[in-house]
């Protein structure tokens, strides 16, 4: 075994063989992504030819139903492909995650509408998380005015979405079958939205997760749907038996572990050549050796756990029925664990890299900022552990997705 980042990379990914296709395509894009990473951060846009290559790789459509021109790949392939992209640039991986998340609305649309939207092979959809905005129900559709934040990927999107509560003509809020105000997703071409340049953050700057607003916009009923009731979906298959929140968690886990893996690999390379002032070679330090191994174990264990969890649930999933609350808890737990492991590894690597790590251009500085932006995202919240704990203790939260 020789001293190189490859050594770390070569450690077993239990079931990786099965997903070689998507992962292999992701790996092939690695050098181009790495070469574009500075530009992506600086311009907060994905430059050509990278954007075209990403479309060609079909990695932005892994979760889109085959019926609408997507890959409809497994969640295991999805996780490992995102992880591979994130090894080269976290912002690109994040936008890949977002692209594969917004397409999850497709199974809830009327098929002809979905086909119309996604017939363009470069269709990308973006939106921000729900807030208190309301759309008014009008004849044939909805009329909406509002603003949303955190719309990652909007700078490459040709379609936008907006999650709204629905206000009926009489001023009352429309309720869903659970008796709570419904959240309806309205879709419209990006030209109808006003994109606002607000994304001034510590990291993931390349995602351009800007804000956007619309004013008195009409959206036809057919271009709207709701994600809140898994039973309303129209496309069968085990992939869609997973909940949308669950697949979000899987994608986010991949971004986090890929970023941490890249830092870990870069640190192994650094340790073999760095001798800090007044000390010996980093690689010769027993403390560093122990830490490198622990980091490797954290990444590989959390990955194997997520692989195994997804594979078991996927294998047993019904074509139609959504997976059980217990299974949702398993997905959530394995994802939260992976994100947690990634953050811990990134922090440990950063600390051990010393003063090298604070300079832009090092393999650590941007990734450190990126992972500490991810760590604040809702998918990384430690409250997920509490929710899963409630399931394990026999009292699942009421609307656990």
């Amino acid at each position, binding site marked *: 075994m020789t001293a190189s980042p490859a050594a770390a990379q070569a450690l077993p990914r239990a079931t990786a063989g099965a997903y070689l296709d998507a992962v292999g395509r992701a790996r092939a894009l690695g050098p181009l992504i790495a070469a574009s990473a500075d530009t992506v951060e600086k311009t907060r846009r994905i430059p050509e030819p990278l954007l075209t290559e990403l479309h060609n790789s079909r990695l932005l459509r892994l979760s889109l139903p085959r019926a609408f021109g997507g890959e409809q790949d497994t969640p295991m392939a999805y996780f490992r492909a995102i992880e591979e992209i994130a090894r080269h640039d976290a912002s690109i991986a994040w936008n890949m995650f977002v692209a594969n998340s917004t397409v999850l609305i497709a199974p809830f649309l009327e098929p002809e509408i979905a086909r119309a939207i996604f017939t363009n092979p470069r269709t990308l959809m973006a939106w921000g*998380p729900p807030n208190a905005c309301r759309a008014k129900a009008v004849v044939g559709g909805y009329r909406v005015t509002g603003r949303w934040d*955190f719309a990652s990927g909007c700078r490459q999107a040709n379609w936008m979405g907006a999650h709204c509560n629905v206000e009926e003509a009489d001023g009352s809020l429309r309720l869903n079958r659970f008796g709570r105000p419904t959240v309806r997703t309205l879709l419209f071409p990006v030209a109808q939205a006003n994109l606002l340049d607000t994304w*001034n*953050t*510590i*990291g*993931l700057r390349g995602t351009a997760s800007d804000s956007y607003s619309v004013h008195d916009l009409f959206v036809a009923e057919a271009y709207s749907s709701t994600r809140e009731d898994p039973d309303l979906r129209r496309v069968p298959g085990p992939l869609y038996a997973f909940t949308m929140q669950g697949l979000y968690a899987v994608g986010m886990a991949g971004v986090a572990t890929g970023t941490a893996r890249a830092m870990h690999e870069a640190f192994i390379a650094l340790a073999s050549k760095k001798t*800090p*002032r*007044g*000390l010996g070679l980093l690689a010769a*330090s027993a*403390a560093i050796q122990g830490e490198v191994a622990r980091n490797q174990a954290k990444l590989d264990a959390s990955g194997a756990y997520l692989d195994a969890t997804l594979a078991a649930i996927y294998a047993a999933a019904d074509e139609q029925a959504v997976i059980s609350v217990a299974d949702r808890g398993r997905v959530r737990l394995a994802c939260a664990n992976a994100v947690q492991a990634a953050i811990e590894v990134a*922090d440990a690597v*950063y*600390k*051990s*890299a*010393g*003063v090298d*790590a*604070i*300079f*832009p251009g090092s393999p650590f*500085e941007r990734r*450190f*900022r990126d992972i*500490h*932006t991810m*760590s*604040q*995202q*809702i998918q990384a*919240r*430690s*409250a997920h552990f*509490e929710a899963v704990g409630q399931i394990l203790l026999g009292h699942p939260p009421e609307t656990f997705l």
Partner: protein
Amino acid sequence: MSYNGTPIMHAEPSVISQAATTSGQAGALERARRVAEKLRAGTRRIEDERALPPDLLEAMHEARLFRLLLPTSIGGDETDLLTFVQVTETIAAADASAAWCLGQGSGCSMTASFLKPDVAQRLFGPRNAVLAWGAGVQGTATAVDGGYRVSGQWSFASGSRHATMLGAHCKIVEANGQPRLNAAGKQADCTALFPRAKAKVRDVWDVMGLRGTGSDTYEVTDLVVPADETLDREGMDKVVVKSTLFRLPTTIIYAGGFGGVMLGIVRGTLSDLRAIAMTKTQRGASSSMRESQVFQSDLAKMEARFRAARALLHTTVSDVWTDMHAGRALTLDHRINVRLASTHAINEGVDIVAEAYRAAGSNAIFRQLPFEQRLRDAHSVSQQVQGRPTHYMTVGRHLLDLAPDTMMFL
């Protein structure tokens, strides 16, 4: 409230070893508090300009903060060590870069105690006198008539943008080109001081955190420096001013001061965190942050770790000062104790800041709130030599009756 630098949650530190402190110190801390408010309001400008803007620099001079560790004979404060640590904490709670410059400038200003009184007065007498230098013996001082001819390049000169003087650590070479040896037969070094204007300063300071320190690179070529504007930093026996403060090596000053900087960042972060918790409810959360039992518990744990690290640093530097003030010599135990307390404050501190940042949720990633800057600053302080985890090994060796692996940071 949290954003103007006034700590909310932390009771004033108990004044420890009051008897041993010198007069005038309460004034120093009080002056620091007043300046802190201005610095807090200007922290964005400090970061964007990657230096202390003139008005804020002037406020620090007005408060005489760069004079804390100068001899009283030339209008300095000669504060005790605990007060110095508390001042760096107070300033860092407002702006870490300003505090870092203060810590570094204060350490450099200790050189005044090596100079003849009239030279010290000439160089450090002006109210805006600040000395900065880069790390390491990177230059050459060739002996010439009445002084040295100095050439070399130095990096990481924190505070170089507002410094009036720069320093250059050099190997001494005789006029004939032979290295000068000291009494122990080793290469003799000196530090030459000269006006900043004499050096070529290059702006290279583009980093993740502590951006406001302007820690540039500078060089001089064949600059002649008079002998009495040079000194031998290693020769504690050559210190001219004999009071308690100047019997301390600068390693102790840096360890205490930069420990204080990290504690200040932590204090500011926890104060900010408490402030947003008073109003924020995270998306999808069942209760407000303030009412969340998990948040309450985590906040108290962070507070406990902060208070404990702070209590250790304060009692440790206070003990050292008390002993020194009573005329006792500085022992290896003293050095080890300060090393451990400072390393612990820095390592605990960066962990607490990272945890607080995470607890603050998604707003924390935006520049509009102070969290992301404090995270970057803390993660830059921790990367500097004072925060190295290997210091624990050095201390461990001492606890096990082994000789230190290095004296460089003791």
